[in-house]
């Protein structure tokens, strides 16, 4: 999953980037409102964590512009403003959740997970794919009681395919899920990760879970 954090505090940027990456998310950081707007409109993010008091452009302005551009990414406002009117303004402008600083990192993570599930219309964190189960909260996949040893990128791709079960996902979309704004991987990297996934699944005698539609992409039935 890919997350954009729009936050001007360098210390919060640092801790959020590190923490969310360690949880398996791809994280981009924007330090001001204008950068945040540009990132949000051009990156395919699953969740945007948005501060309200930002240099150059306020968080509410960012939110307004993002929603005006028909971007339907889930937005979680993370602000020191705790007044009810601030929450109402944020939610009415199109935010999906509001968390007041100081916050518990675990609570932030739980809310991000909830927003991701909402984005993919998934009520529970466990996605049952038949032979395997994907726990999107722990970013783990199980075959019976056995846990697969997937890499973070393989897990991200599997989760994304699981969330979009029945839909063909283009390699470029999957690439976006494993690359942040500062990294670049070629399309071949996706084939490598898919191959790695299939190999680890086959080792458990699970074959044909991830299917390929030539010229279009990958999908799970």
């Amino acid at each position, binding site marked *: 999953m890919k997350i954009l954090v729009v936050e001007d505090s360098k210390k919060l940027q640092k801790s959020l980037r590190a923490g969310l990456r360690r949880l398996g998310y791809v994280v981009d950081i924007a330090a001001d409102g204008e950068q945040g707007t540009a990132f949000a409109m051009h990156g395919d993010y699953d969740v945007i964590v948005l501060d309200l*008091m930002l240099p150059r452009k306020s968080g509410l302005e960012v939110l307004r512009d993002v929603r005006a551009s028909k971007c339907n990414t889930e937005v979680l406002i993370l602000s020191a403003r705790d007044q009810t009117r601030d929450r109402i303004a944020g939610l009415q402008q199109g935010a999906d959740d509001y968390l007041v600083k100081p916050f518990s990192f675990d609570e932030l993570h739980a809310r991000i997970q909830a927003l991701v599930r909402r984005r993919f219309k998934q009520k529970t964190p466990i996605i049952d794919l038949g032979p395997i189960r994907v726990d999107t909260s722990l970013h783990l996949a199980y075959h019976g009681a056995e846990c697969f040893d997937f890499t973070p990128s393989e897990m991200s791709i599997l989760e994304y395919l699981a969330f979009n079960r029945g839909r063909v996902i283009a390699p470029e979309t999957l690439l976006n899920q494993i690359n942040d704004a500062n990294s670049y991987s070629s399309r071949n990297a996706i084939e490598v990760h898919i191959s790695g996934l299939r190999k680890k699944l086959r080792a458990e005698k699970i074959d044909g879970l991830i299917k390929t539609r030539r010229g279009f992409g990958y999908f799970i039935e």
Partner: protein
Amino acid sequence: MRSISKTITVTIIISIGLILALGQVAIDFAVTRWLTEQFDTAMEARARALVTLTKFDGSEVELDFADEFMPEFEAPAEPQYFELFLGDGSLLERSHSFDENPALRSADQPDRAAPTGHRFPGFGFEDQSDEVVFTDLRLPDGRMGRRVAIKFIVQIENEDELLEDLLEDQIPLQDRPRAIVRFSRERESLDRIRQHFHLFIIGITLIILLAVVVSVPRLTRAGLRPLIRMKDEIGAITPQTMDHRVTDRGQPIEIEPIASQFNLVLDEIEKAFIRERQFSSDVAHELRTPVAEIRSLAEVGLRWPDEKDIRTYFGDIHESAQHLDRLIENLLYLCRSEEGNIEIVVGDVDLGKLLDEIRASLAAECESRAIRIDPPANAPPVVVADPQWLELILQNLLSNAVSHSPNGANLGIEIDADGGYCRLEIHNPMAIPLTAEDIDHVFQRFWRKDTARETGRHAGIGLSLVKSYADLMGFDIDAWVADGRFHIALSRIEVSGATTSPPAG
């Protein structure tokens, strides 16, 4: 608790009750007296009728009385009584009504043992003029009665008019026979009327009093309705509805000034309330940011201690904690200064030395950002001020100037001393340009040009703190923008008589 409504109601009811009681007594007295007078007048008329019937023909006194013309003296039921005595006290005539109770007659007779002549002992008649005396008594038939006694000189009357004229001429007035007539009648009818009138008056009084008791509270409430309405309006004002006001237009003249004055007080309370709420909100906001940084860094660091730049977390946490510490300290200073709870100990302060120390404290930041603080051209004097608070003011001003200058900027300090006072001005180019409108806000707590917080040293209370302390020490402080530079000047700093320090360099 005292109630105006109850006080007014009780006072009015008691007052009206007293007025009614006094009025009742007065009316009762007047009417009773009038009734008695009317009664007595009627009695006297009857008695005088008997007087006119009493005649002296030259030889004897006789009463020309016929029962058939005055049947009331013979009526078996409720009779009236009369008696006619001569001047010597002898009874000349009495009504037949006495016959019903002969045993009682003697009790009502004049004192026969009294001296004769022109005196009428027992009746108080001392002279020859007519005298009328009314007395209350119990009638022979047992009823309560009233009697009128009239002393009179018996008129001369003779069938022979010549003789009558002769007698008139020959018998002087003082020698004519005297007589007294006593007419009695029951007075129970009078007492009944008086009693009925008493009851009537009491009834009327009670009815009026009842009407007063019923109507006064209502009228009082109606009269106090604007006050009650105002009370309700005031009661509806809560911290959530501080913008509400009491209706002052169209109020009675007694209420309008109170309502207007109350609204003025509400204006001030609302301003203070908004200011305090804003202050609390700002404080909470400013405290939240460094706390959020500390908490987030600590939680992530504790969870993933193998994070590659984990060591930098400690520095970041320490920096945020220092920021928090400074913020709390400044807030405390601000609160104390605004409460006037600051002790000012004035002494000589070497301004040049103080400026050098502050510049030295900012040297590292200035060096890292290639910022230069030019020393003042004029030698800074020794001034009279509290050294602690003057240092805090100058530290804030210079620190503020450095923080809000672009990298590579030159900061200027200018000092002028004249007329025993010194003026100190600091100016710097602006990293974020301020407008003239912004200048109105620079001394406000938590005001910043950019809406973003800076996680560095400035929370937006430095200049408000400076102003607060400058006010306490009696300095004037002014800020303005000119030529792309932000200027701030302290003036009215008293120059000491001590030696000035050499210019700093």
